């Protein structure tokens, strides 16, 4: 399918899991750079695989439940999340499971994948930071002509 994708996951009705949808709403008001696609990943988990397979670069945005509860944006990689996957598949298997199986199940070369985690309360500043981080990451290695700063309404 090609393309650079920002996939926001989470549940807007559960406050501690709503960061992804909030970032989605923020970015939906922005003028996205050429070639960047914004996807509402909801709670799809493994069914997001087809948005990764064949993509040029993918950034996931999700709520992050941390021990220290420090609010803020943390960037990590699928490899760092390998210990987060559930021991086995279930209907509730989410992003960590998808990230764990990605190297095995993609039909095409695995694109660079980043995860932007939002820890703690998802206030307006944190959401804006997460959105900016996602945009920066998704444009990495993009041709200069396609890179741009978003204009948000």
């Amino acid at each position, binding site marked *: 399918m090609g393309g650079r994708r920002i996939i926001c996951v989470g549940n807007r009705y559960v406050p501690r*899991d709503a960061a992804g949808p909030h970032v989605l709403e923020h970015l939906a008001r922005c003028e996205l750079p050429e070639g960047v696609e914004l996807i509402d990943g909801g709670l799809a988990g493994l069914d997001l695989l087809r948005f990764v397979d064949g993509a040029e670069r993918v950034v996931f945005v999700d*709520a992050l439940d*941390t021990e220290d509860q420090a609010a803020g944006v943390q960037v990590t990689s699928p490899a760092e999340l390998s210990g987060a996957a559930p021991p*086995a598949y279930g*209907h*509730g298997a989410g992003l960590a499971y998808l990230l764990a*199986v990605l190297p095995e*199940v993609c039909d095409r070369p695995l694109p660079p994948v980043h995860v932007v985690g939002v820890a703690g309360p998802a206030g307006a500043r944190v959401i804006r930071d997460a959105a900016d981080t996602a945009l920066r990451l998704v444009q990495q290695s993009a041709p200069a002509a396609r890179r741009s700063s978003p204009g948000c309404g």
Partner: protein
Amino acid sequence: MSSSLTTTAADPEAHLAGKVVRERHTLNVPLNRVEGDLAIRVQIEDGVVVDAWSCGTMFRGIENILIGRGALDGLVITPRVCGICSTAHLVAAARALNAISRVEPPPDAVRIQNVALAVEMVQSDVRQTMLMYLPDFANPAYESRPFHETAVHRYAPMKGSSAIESIRWSKRLLEIVAILGGQWPHSSYMVPGGVVTVPSAADLLQCRSLLAGFRRWYERQVLGCPLERWHQVRSRADLDSWLEERPAHRESDLGFFLQVARVLGLEQLGRGHANLLCVGGFPLPPDCAVPCPRPGGAELMPPGFYRRLEQAPFDQTRVEEHVKHSWYVDYPGGRHPSAGETRPYASGDEGGKYSWAKAPRYDGQPAETGPLAELLSMRDPLTLELVAEPGVTAFTRQLARLTRPAVLLPVLETWLAEIPPDATCYVPGARLETGVGIGLTEATRGALGHWVEIAHGRIVSYQIVTPTAWNGSPRDASDVRGPWEEALVGTPVGNPANPVELGHVVRSFDPCLVCTVHALGKGRGAGPWTL
């Protein structure tokens, strides 16, 4: 699988009754691989389950969200009930509104709906088998068994060869739903009067190509033979001959399941009430080349209620929901869904009410639902013989699920071939102003029903009865156990700290409770990051 364990001394009452209980355990089994929202509690005496309780731990509430919304909103909201069977909810929601709109979707719209629903079933069947059921054969409890090494190689989570291939191929198959419905899951392209998509010749060609690829994989890996050869298996003797016929049969996933099931005695596990319900699935357009398995029928999966092989016609007015043991405000007996209500009530009456699932009953009886009931309803010869002997067990349930794609794949090919590029996919119906509608369909896990009432263009009542509510129901107003509660009774448990046998039973129903909460976590568990 981990469990919490309470061991108690022998029961004095049992002694008085002349029964000597040497050891008693109470297990709380989270059954995480089944579903994060399901907990099973069992009581074990002398290594055998003597009682069971099924607890749905999450309140759904979709019905209440719908009250007061526009008549069409169910088409968008109800597919969110479940990320695994959202197409089935869309089919049921659209079908309920067809009745109010007094409209019949054109034949090709029915074909498109059928294709999407069948694809959803097939992908779920292979994922459930490879990712949820067969991994139990790789459980450490079986380390000393000859089959264990193969089971680990094929079904170990996230690396087993069959597990990985099932993810690859189910992903490709689901692209058919995305082509027809614009997205997967949670599509909303079905409406009263048909579907809002007209697939092009290229779309249909791509769907057929994806289906052909999946069929080749299913034949090669899952069956180990062409579909046509499998369809010749019509009896228990045929099944045994098929298994012995070729190494490819024995080495397939189906062949492996059959051999291990025999070793583990799955034919004797999980008998339950042996009541089966099929509400009907896949209406057949009049000009369709797919025959109805029953003379005069109008659906690929005709409706029916079965007490083992004894068949009774299905009548939706006999469906009731009980809440005596569910966390809802009580009412006496049961209520038909059209008169149902969803008023949460978490009582302090510990043990009396114990699940967010209601207890659906048919004609006052618990009934299980799913592929086994469907194949029985289709009068599949092998299923008829197996339901007679060994009966409704974990083995027959799982065999039906593993081979349901063999029924659906050729039918899918026919439907896709029958849809012309310029298909008529929609006819307008009456305005959705006031009325009552019922949408029934077979979903991935069995009988699904939507009951809706519209007044002045708004939803005034919406009740959904899902397959897992049937299968995983708590006790009813007469304190009769739900289907998988009953199926667990009598299950031997070798090691209460690793009760893998309970997984064989409960997973044969393919439980699916609603999953709505998740977040990435950091700093707990074995790795630096955990869910």
